[in-house]
């Protein structure tokens, strides 16, 4: 999934952009499904979870990239997990200090950011063999892409399951919410539909590129 031949390159906006779309952690890499399915039951939860994950991924990428020559590969997983767990604990305290309500809404899932394979994946596959600037951009892009995907799910699930978006009503009073969309099964349905849409868009794009290439030799 990563391209080690790029390690000589200087930081570019591409490191950031790729996480948003081409290598979107949820819709393309399909990583970190536990929080994606569990915390996307409302848009505000999705946003808070996305921002917390972005915070952790950027900081862990920063530290892993800074220390990459210092960490022998035999103990790299242990140190990566230690670094990630530290930043998750930090973000846990920070959220409590910022808003107890958000902390209550996210519940156990903040601590579970530790085992989000997306973060360990970026530390292992990118930050541990790329420079600081590119690693930060990569973390930022992946984090924003993750937040975007969570919002896609959370928005749809909240609109259909509760008739609201960010707590504001979007349907007239007569709307009967599809409660199943808020329940765990609704997460799977919504994720499947988004994956379907993304794969269709990507295959259409690929087709267009081949036809273009054939038309202009």
């Amino acid at each position, binding site marked *: 999934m990563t391209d080690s031949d790029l390690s000589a390159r200087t930081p570019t906006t591409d490191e950031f952009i790729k996480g948003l779309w081409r290598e979107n952690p949820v819709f393309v890499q399909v990583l970190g499904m536990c929080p994606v399915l569990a915390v996307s039951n409302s848009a505000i939860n999705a946003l808070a979870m996305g921002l917390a994950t972005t915070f952790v991924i950027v900081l862990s990428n920063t530290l892993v990239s800074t220390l990459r020559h210092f*960490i022998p590969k035999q103990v790299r997983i242990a140190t990566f997990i230690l670094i990630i767990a530290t930043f998750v604990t930090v973000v846990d305290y920070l959220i409590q*200090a910022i808003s107890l309500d958000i902390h209550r809404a996210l519940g156990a899932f903040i601590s579970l950011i530790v085992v989000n394979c997306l973060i360990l994946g970026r530390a292992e596959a990118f930050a541990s063999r790329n420079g600081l600037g590119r690693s930060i951009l990569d973390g930022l892009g992946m984090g924003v892409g993750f937040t975007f995907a969570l919002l896609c799910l959370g928005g749809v699930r909240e609109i259909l399951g509760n008739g609201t978006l960010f707590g504001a009503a979007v349907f007239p009073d007569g709307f009967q*919410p599809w*409660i199943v969309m*808020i*329940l765990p099964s609704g997460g799977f349905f919504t994720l499947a539909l988004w994956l379907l849409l993304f794969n269709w868009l990507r295959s259409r794009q690929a087709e267009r590129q081949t036809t273009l290439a054939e038309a202009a030799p």
Partner: protein
Amino acid sequence: MVEIIQTDRAAPPASWPMYRALVGIGMLCGLLIVSVYVLTGPVIARNEARALEAAVFRVLPGATSSHTFALTEDGRFRSAEEGTPTDSEAEAGTPTYSGMEAGTNTGTPIDSGDPELEKQAGTPTDRVVHAGYDDNGSLVGVAIQAQGMGYQDVIRVLYGYDPARDAIIGMQVLASKETPGLGDKIEKDPAFLANFDALDVSLAPDGQSLQHPIEAVKGGEKSQPWQIDGITGATISSKAIAGTLRQSSAQWVPLIHRQRAIFTDREVSNDGQ
């Protein structure tokens, strides 16, 4: 995902770099966690205190100041403002902790005619309550914490009791892990919360128990002032709230009602401290 780091270092390194990396990063991380904890600790404690105070004002509409009272062993309320731990607070954690009783019992509805519960209602419990006063300094009501088993986990609630109106005048869920979208409606559903604007808890003539224990009915079937309209799709959570309030009110309401003068004459009890 193999051979990620420094593939050029093919020879197995000595153990020293591994110790150095693990211990060094461990110390760095430990330092970071402890400093963030120390920095955010006071803020978090202040947030929690503010959240409780905001909840007190929310369950006691019109209240603008609050005063904490503790129930002593002899069954009397004493002023217990911060910094003056009373005997009763030191005893917190004894088996008569009323929250624990509620936690174990609310799964099965208990009629307040139950002799055991009536005995408990007469037993002093070591807990604190928060009296709320309006701008003129007159008593709005007393906020009481209670907890009971919900669908997923223990639900903690705060409710306001107005001894003058013999009614519960507000309720707020402090902590719950109910199913998102279903059970958690007990926290914000306006129709459900409206049940607690004036929920009758008047005492029986003997002054020891409630005339009508609080009960949950199916949504829309509320016909009596002591009934709670349940939420469709959140039956268990609604019943858990009703059960928690039924148990807690059976204990607290007779006690507070008997000693309501202590709460209304706050200045007197303050001078006595």
